[in-house]
């Protein structure tokens, strides 16, 4: 059984899966729109939780949150479940495909054989859509790929039941009930309100724009505290989280700017367009940060001055973003 699935490439897997699934069901939401309505943008730097010995840095919300919020805001019901039995997880997938329903699921990147080897780390929250089966292969629409692809059943089982941090446990999901009418304006404003709140109002110093400032302060002292080797490793990790696959550039800032751009014409508010321009400018500074950090990583030297300069760029971005998201939060509150 094969379903005609409208695959389109996207920057980030979760947005892409939602956007593609919605398009299949006849609703047109672009990737930035999904990201914006789902309030995907965020920042957090958590020095006391380490992965592979490196503090966790993230430019986005928790995996799964975008879809959850998006569904809530357009009033759509999603069936989502995980499994303890591999056999059951696969047979239910087969029966869903046979019914003609494409299914989104969580997988580990490491076992997705069609990706370039360089990307295959143990990252357990990658989203893909499976929309068909041909013998022992499943037909996969992975939003980060340009085209659809296939994966062997044995690999898919491994990917769905990967172990470690945040195990996917075969989780799969598909929309079951759609709203009669979608109030896009309302959904957009609610999405913006939550994003504005998350970025500026959470009273915890490691989250949102406060977190960016905090990381800048820590980053400045990495060379003296950790030594050259570790400092470069930490810095490299921050750049990876910001620029690597799935962020659309500058740690999701450009995707969000694209959302504000699109949203401004839908809700008819030109200020959103201006804010989109400002966020682009701030994102460009983050790109500068990545560029200089990349140079430091390449030369493998950490003269303290360059780390201080990098920290300054981050602080500048934090200040800019703080201003942008405060304004967005206020605008959203005025318009709901």
């Amino acid at each position: 059984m094969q379903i005609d699935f409208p695959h389109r490439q996207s920057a980030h897997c979760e947005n892409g899966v939602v956007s593609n699934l919605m398009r299949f069901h006849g609703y047109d939401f672009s990737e930035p729109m999904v990201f914006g309505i789902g309030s995907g943008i965020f920042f957090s730097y958590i020095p006391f939780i380490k992965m592979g010995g490196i503090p966790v840095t993230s430019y986005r919300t928790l995996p799964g949150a975008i879809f959850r919020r998006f569904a809530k805001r357009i009033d759509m019901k999603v069936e989502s479940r995980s499994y303890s039995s591999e056999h059951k997880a696969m047979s239910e997938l087969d029966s869903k495909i046979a019914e003609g329903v494409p299914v989104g699921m969580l997988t580990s990147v490491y076992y997705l054989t069609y990706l370039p080897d360089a990307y295959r780390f143990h990252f357990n929250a990658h989203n893909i859509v499976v929309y068909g089966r041909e013998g022992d292969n499943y037909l996969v629409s992975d939003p980060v790929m340009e085209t659809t692809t296939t994966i062997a059943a044995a690999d898919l089982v491994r990917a769905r039941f990967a172990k470690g941090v945040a195990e996917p446990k075969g989780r799969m999901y598909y929309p079951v009930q759609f709203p009669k009418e979608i109030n896009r304006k309302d959904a957009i404003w609610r999405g913006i309100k939550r994003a504005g709140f998350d970025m500026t109002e959470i009273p915890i110093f490691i989250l949102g724009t406060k977190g960016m400032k905090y990381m800048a302060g820590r980053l400045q002292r990495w060379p003296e505290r950790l030594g050259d080797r570790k400092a470069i490793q930490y810095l490299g990790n921050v750049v990876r989280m910001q620029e690597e696959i799935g962020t659309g550039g500058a740690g999701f800032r450009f995707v969000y700017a694209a959302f504000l751009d699109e949203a401004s014409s839908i809700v008819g508010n030109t200020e959103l367009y201006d804010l989109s321009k400002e966020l682009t400018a701030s994102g460009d500074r983050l790109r500068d940060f990545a560029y200089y950090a990349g140079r430091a990583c390449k030369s493998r030297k950490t003269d303290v001055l360059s780390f201080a300069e990098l920290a300054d760029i981050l602080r500048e971005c934090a200040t800019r973003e703080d201003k942008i998201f405060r304004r967005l939060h206020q605008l959203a509150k005025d318009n709901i």
Partner: protein
Amino acid sequence: MLQGKFRKLYYATGDGAHYKGVGSVGWEPENVVLEQAWEDIRERVAEARAKVIAGEASPVLYHMERTLMNPDILAGHIGWPALVVRLHLRPFFFGKLSKKTLEKYAYAFQIKPEELIDITKIKDQ
């Protein structure tokens, strides 16, 4: 790095006033940090290999590094706490493993159980 066959999507304003998606093979800083991450991994694998050959560690260490895992991930595969996995990284405890546990490790590493106990293969690589 990406074998030149993988294009990603970015959002950019370009010269127009509005955003649109563009395909790109990535830019330099990204490739630098990715390369750096892999270099660290290669170093760890080489170290692990030397230890296994010297008899200071069990083959589990080598295969764990080779497959980018850590004791926590392996713990999920074999159904024991990570502490037990750490013990299995030593030759003494590795030698006492049951056939069943060896099979679980082999499944996690995507190799055959015979390959797991065969140190000569690690030497040849």
